[in-house]
């Protein structure tokens, strides 16, 4: 009996820090935010309960279009990151040994030693009309006038893929590392070609890494703020920027909070759908 309570107390004490963390930094702010999203300003300093903010999202095409655009571009960015990161990871994990392997792996990490803001400004210096690329093109003779490469969707994609690379490479390298070379050789011995070996052996084995990498990259991209705003210019509508605008420049916390919850709900839905389609479970990929 005494033993039971003391173990329970011990367990509670062990859990206390994480509980405090979860409740104070996750549950409470979200609950507060949820309450804010459920009210509407009727007059200065007076608020009333209402669902108007959620209704606003669905009735004003601007908002849900921005959301759809953000989601589609995030999915595309995730797919592109995967396409680029997979060969890179395979090369690092399977083709290289020893120091060169750690060196290349480290190279993927290096850009993350500076902040995202600095990296994005780096892209701006390279791509702007009076920037490095534009000048090089003119010098080589590929262009006879300054070329503007900033402020469009393609630039946003470049920025997003660049920012997400590491988060795809790490899980992929880890899973590919655990693939026994003998299995690949056996595949060839049994008459497979490069494509069938990739499809039947490598990809199935790497699936947990692919899925977890995709989830992380998708969430990071969807929630990115700096890259789309700085590289995208006048047409760049990103949902997080919309939330920022509502909160900071429009003083409309209610709508901003509602948008925040919609982003949370819809992104969870997309991840869930992604897991269903690939027939993976969250515990499998993350555990």
């Amino acid at each position: 009996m005494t033993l039971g309570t003391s173990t329970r107390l011990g367990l509670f004490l062990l859990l206390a820090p994480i509980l405090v963390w979860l409740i104070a930094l996750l549950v409470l702010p979200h609950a507060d935010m949820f309450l804010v999203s459920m009210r509407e300003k009727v007059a200065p300093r007076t608020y009333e309960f209402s669902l108007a903010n959620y209704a606003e999202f669905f009735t004003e095409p601007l908002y849900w279009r921005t959301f759809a655009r953000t989601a589609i571009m995030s999915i595309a960015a995730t797919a592109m990151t995967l396409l680029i990161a997979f060969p890179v990871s395979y090369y690092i994990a399977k083709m290289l040994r020893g120091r060169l392997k750690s060196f290349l792996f480290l190279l993927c990490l290096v850009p993350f030693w500076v902040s995202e803001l600095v990296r994005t400004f780096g892209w701006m210096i390279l791509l702007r009309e009076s920037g490095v690329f534009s000048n090089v093109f003119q010098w080589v003779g590929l262009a006879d006038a300054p070329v503007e490469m900033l402020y469009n969707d393609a630039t946003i994609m470049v920025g997003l893929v660049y920012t997400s690379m590491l988060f795809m490479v790490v899980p992929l390298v880890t899973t590919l590392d655990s693939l026994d070379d003998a299995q690949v050789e056996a595949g060839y011995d049994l008459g497979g070609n490069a494509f069938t070996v990739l499809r039947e052996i490598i990809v199935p084995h790497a699936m947990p890494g692919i899925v977890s990498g995709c989830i992380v990259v998708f969430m990071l991209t969807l929630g990115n703020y700096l890259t789309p705003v700085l590289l995208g210019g006048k047409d760049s509508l990103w949902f997080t920027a919309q939330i920022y605008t509502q909160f900071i420049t429009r003083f409309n916390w209610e709508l901003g909070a509602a948008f925040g919850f919609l982003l949370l709900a819809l992104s969870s839905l997309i991840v869930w759908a992604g897991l269903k389609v690939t027939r993976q479970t969250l515990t499998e990929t993350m555990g």
Partner: protein
Amino acid sequence: MFKPKTNLILGAVLSATVALTANTAGAETLRLLTWGGYAPEKVVDMFKAETGIDVEVTNSNNEEMISKLRATGGAGFDLAQPSQDRITSAQAEYDIYKPIDLSKIDTSLMIGSMLEGTKKNTMFDGKVYGVPHVWGTSALTVNTTKAPDVKDYLDLCNPKYAGKVSYRMKRPTLIAFAFSMGMDPFAAYNDKAKYQQILDKVQAKLIECKPNVKAYWTGGDALINLIRSDEIVAAMAWDGSGWKVNAEKPEVKTIAPTAGALGWIDTFALPKKTKAEDAAYKWINFVMQPKIAAMITEAAGNFTAAKDGDKYVTEAKRKVYQETFPPAAIDNIKWYPPVPAGLEDMEGKVMDRVQAAR
């Protein structure tokens, strides 16, 4: 392999925290929420030497100031510098400021008409919430060799300059376009239906004009970079930005638009939960001395409400100012009246739609 490094980092973090806490525990600090250039380092150092008070400067803009103070109910800063027209509505909505005690301010340092105007415009419930500091206008910054015929806001929409102009996606742009289109938005401030009609027309114009815009600028430095590198040839911008570029690129000038430049006055206002009120008053009285005010003019690019502050400003600065604003252009400045609560919601919608338009 990683251990020594972690220890090093840990040590660095620890010593940094110790240094920080030691710093804050020591001298009195004034947390100032202001605009870029309004509290130059030199002035901060002089203030510290004279009073022993540290000034912690946070650069911001009107919307962020209101949002920051709203989030904390007016805490976190000891002195803020919102524009005079944005004080009463913010006070009405969020109750974030504290009335100013004019007896603690040496009002003889300020230009009388500007002080009276600001007192009137920041009056809420019979109390004064702001005193003037820096004033200036939103006008046109034009590269006069590449875009010689840009004289008014609407000229930014001239197809000749497609992809070569910039303005902000903020309320001054809406107001400016309305004036340029021959309407008077300030006269409609208290008539929401009429104001909406004006906004609808401005919205259509801004959408039509959108292909001309290279990018909506968001900060003074970004704009200066755009015009300095010839990536744009004309912009609606703060007069001070144009004057700054003019110093190194003489063909870039600040031009008072024919529809009238939009005049703003940034003020000193006390956040409701200010913790260093005395230091705040000391700072106000300190920076309003003519010589200090001139230093701020050099740094911020704009003139102050300090009496005789312009006497100590360099000749070059005064000359560009007079070139932009001959007496007739000064009389034509449209000064922002206080924004009634609720108008900014309407404007927000318009800006969202313009931003989304293709």
